[in-house]
């Protein structure tokens, strides 16, 4: 039913969803890196995977306000599903296995969403952490399925779409990861700029008021949590497929902490924070550990401290990615919260 009001809202949403020049530039640079930086593809694959993972965390942290210290649970779950599918020869085609892993992770997210519906920030932090730790222990025990501490290794991946074989230089792996990340990003962007996304934003600002005007908080939160879990699962599956290896390290606390750091560095709440943060974090880490393999932690820690002390206000790049309007400043505020 298209009344003048709904037409106006649709027009307004469409206007907000227009692509900014900075966004187009970002993706053009990403595309260019496929051709222009062949020696970097192995590292950039990890950046893309971390970016997708951070994007999935942004969906629940930046847009729904759920702080999670255990998001690696879904990442690792997706990695193991993809690994098991390949190792046991159940599904040969990587794209199909990727979709299955994503759906499986989303189901896990849906099943565990009840854990994050109640409680304060701190409670959610610990409950999500607890879930990840429990999953880690389970994976450690089920040696017949997951390989335990040795991990799943030695399985070969079939060529992507039957054509592109995973090469040792990582070119196909990178193109594959970047393409998947881009497609999922588009979907997320569509989701965020839709009425669903708008309702999430209102829930985050004031859940009570949102419920009063008829937005069901529980259903929305469960939905976004499941979607975010699915995205994280796809990221994990990408890792397993491009490295032909799945280990317990995909489930551990450090993985959850790294993705949280990457997202905070980039800024939560405007979709690009995860991607930018992943680029910054991974490249910084790589550069510093190349200079000092043993004590890079010190310099990385110093950079993190300085980022917070100096603040991101001097860096106005966030504005370039946001819709032009008073909503931009609101998003900036929520992005920092």
């Amino acid at each position: 039913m298209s009344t003048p009001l709904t037409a106006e809202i649709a027009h307004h949403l469409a206007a907000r969803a227009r692509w900014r020049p900075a966004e187009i530039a970002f993706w053009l640079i990403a595309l260019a890196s496929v051709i222009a930086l062949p020696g970097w593809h192995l590292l950039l694959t990890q950046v893309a995977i971390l970016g997708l993972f951070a994007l999935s965390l942004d969906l629940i942290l930046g847009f729904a306000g759920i702080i999670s210290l255990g998001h690696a649970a879904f990442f690792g779950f997706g990695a193991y599903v993809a690994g098991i599918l390949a190792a046991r020869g159940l599904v040969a085609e990587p794209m199909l296995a990727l979709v299955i892993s994503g759906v499986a992770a989303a189901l896990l997210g849906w099943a565990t969403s009840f854990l994050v519906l109640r409680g304060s920030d701190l409670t959610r932090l610990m409950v999500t952490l607890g879930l990840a730790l429990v999953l880690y222990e389970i994976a450690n025990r089920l040696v017949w399925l997951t390989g335990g501490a040795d991990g799943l290794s030695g399985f070969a991946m079939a060529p992507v779409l039957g054509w592109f074989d995973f090469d040792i230089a990582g070119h196909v792996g990178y193109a594959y990861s970047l393409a998947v990340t881009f497609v999922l990003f588009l979907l997320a962007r569509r989701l965020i700029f839709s009425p669903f996304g708008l309702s999430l934003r209102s829930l985050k600002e004031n859940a009570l008021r949102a419920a009063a005007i008829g937005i069901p908080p529980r259903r929305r939160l469960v939905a976004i949590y499941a979607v975010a879990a699915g995205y994280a699962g796809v990221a994990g599956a990408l890792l397993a497929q491009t490295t032909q290896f799945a280990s317990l390290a995909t489930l551990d606390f450090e993985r959850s902490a790294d993705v949280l750091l990457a997202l905070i560095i980039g800024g939560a709440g405007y979709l690009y924070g995860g991607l930018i943060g992943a680029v910054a974090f991974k490249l910084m880490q790589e550069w510093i550990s190349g200079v000092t393999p043993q004590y890079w932690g010190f310099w990385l820690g110093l950079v993190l401290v300085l980022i917070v002390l100096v603040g991101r206000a001097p860096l106005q790049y966030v504005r370039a990615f946001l819709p032009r309007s008073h909503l931009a400043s609101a998003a900036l505020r929520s992005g920092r919260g």
Partner: protein
Amino acid sequence: MRSRAFAIGLAGLALSAAAMSTVRAEEVVKIGLILPMTGQQATTGKQIAAAARLYMQLNGAVVAGKRIELIIKDDATVPDTTRRLAQELIVNDKVSFLAGFGITPSALAVAPLATQAKVPEIVMAAGTSIITEKSPFVVRTSFTLAQSSVIMADWAAKTGLKKAVTIVSDYGPGYDAEAAFKERFVRAGGQVVASLRVPLQAPDFAPFLQRAHDAAPDTIFVFVPSGQGAALIRQFVERGLDKAGIRLVSTGDVMDDDQLNGMGDAILGSISAHMYSAAHPSAVNKAFVAAFEQANHFRPNFMAVGGYDGMHLIYEALKKTKGSTDGAALIAAMKGMTWESPRGPISIDPDTRDIVQNIYVRKVERVNGELYNIEFETFPAVKDPVKAARM
């Protein structure tokens, strides 16, 4: 006239330039050393890096006309990072050897790469038996858990100990050690009354030691990764288990040379079985330990000697192939190689590419004011029992 002189001069210049460039084009052989320099296993990385550098310092950086370049990378004990670093080293740096590998999943993750790129993978630290089976290009210079565990079981049975409780960390190598000890001990007529597994992360040994005590064994066999052993021993003594007549036997990971002095007198008299002690009484070892301590100000442990011997293996293989970096040729050269290592005589088994070495049973004693593992019994030329049983 002038143009001919000019042409000759030009030709001479070209020739000498060509000659100079062939002289200066000394080829470089790169070794990619991937170690856990940070994280839980940081001591492993530190020891191996120091040992590798020491070897190069003592033996020079030129082998068979090639200059050796060592590239050290930190994988922070994360196996997918190990894999990516190995890939980058192969593709971008064009290394001829991959070495290091602090934990088993790191070595396993890289094995398919070694096969695909035909690059030898020298395992200097990880200790699970199956690693060498994952690729024909894997060679190990460290040890396998099973080697130490079965010798410990043999010795325990020989000494007349009958009832054992095993306490191992709850992960792959722990299961290996537990299975190896149990199988050998039971075969020798003993009885394993309880098999306890301690969580790998942040372990508190108190309840497990209490449970072990309640089972009233005459010996407890222990394996935990190097770094956790000290806490376990101290708690063992604190609970008075040694006074209750229970003999503690362990693999050498628990009696890590690097940690011995910090563990205190509580560990005096502890028995362990392993392939290296810094107190090994050979001239080669004395020289090695002296040089190592002078360069680094800490004692070398069994990880260091794995790294040192790994470098020796690389150097000798290159000498045998006369500088050729063909992977298959290098592996063929490594098979069957024997030499005198600081730990004793060792060789690379040509069938399995795994290390064959002496395993010593040692006791902790105070020598010159410091604690050392003093070897008192030697079991020569021990092969990895897991693979040997299958052959």
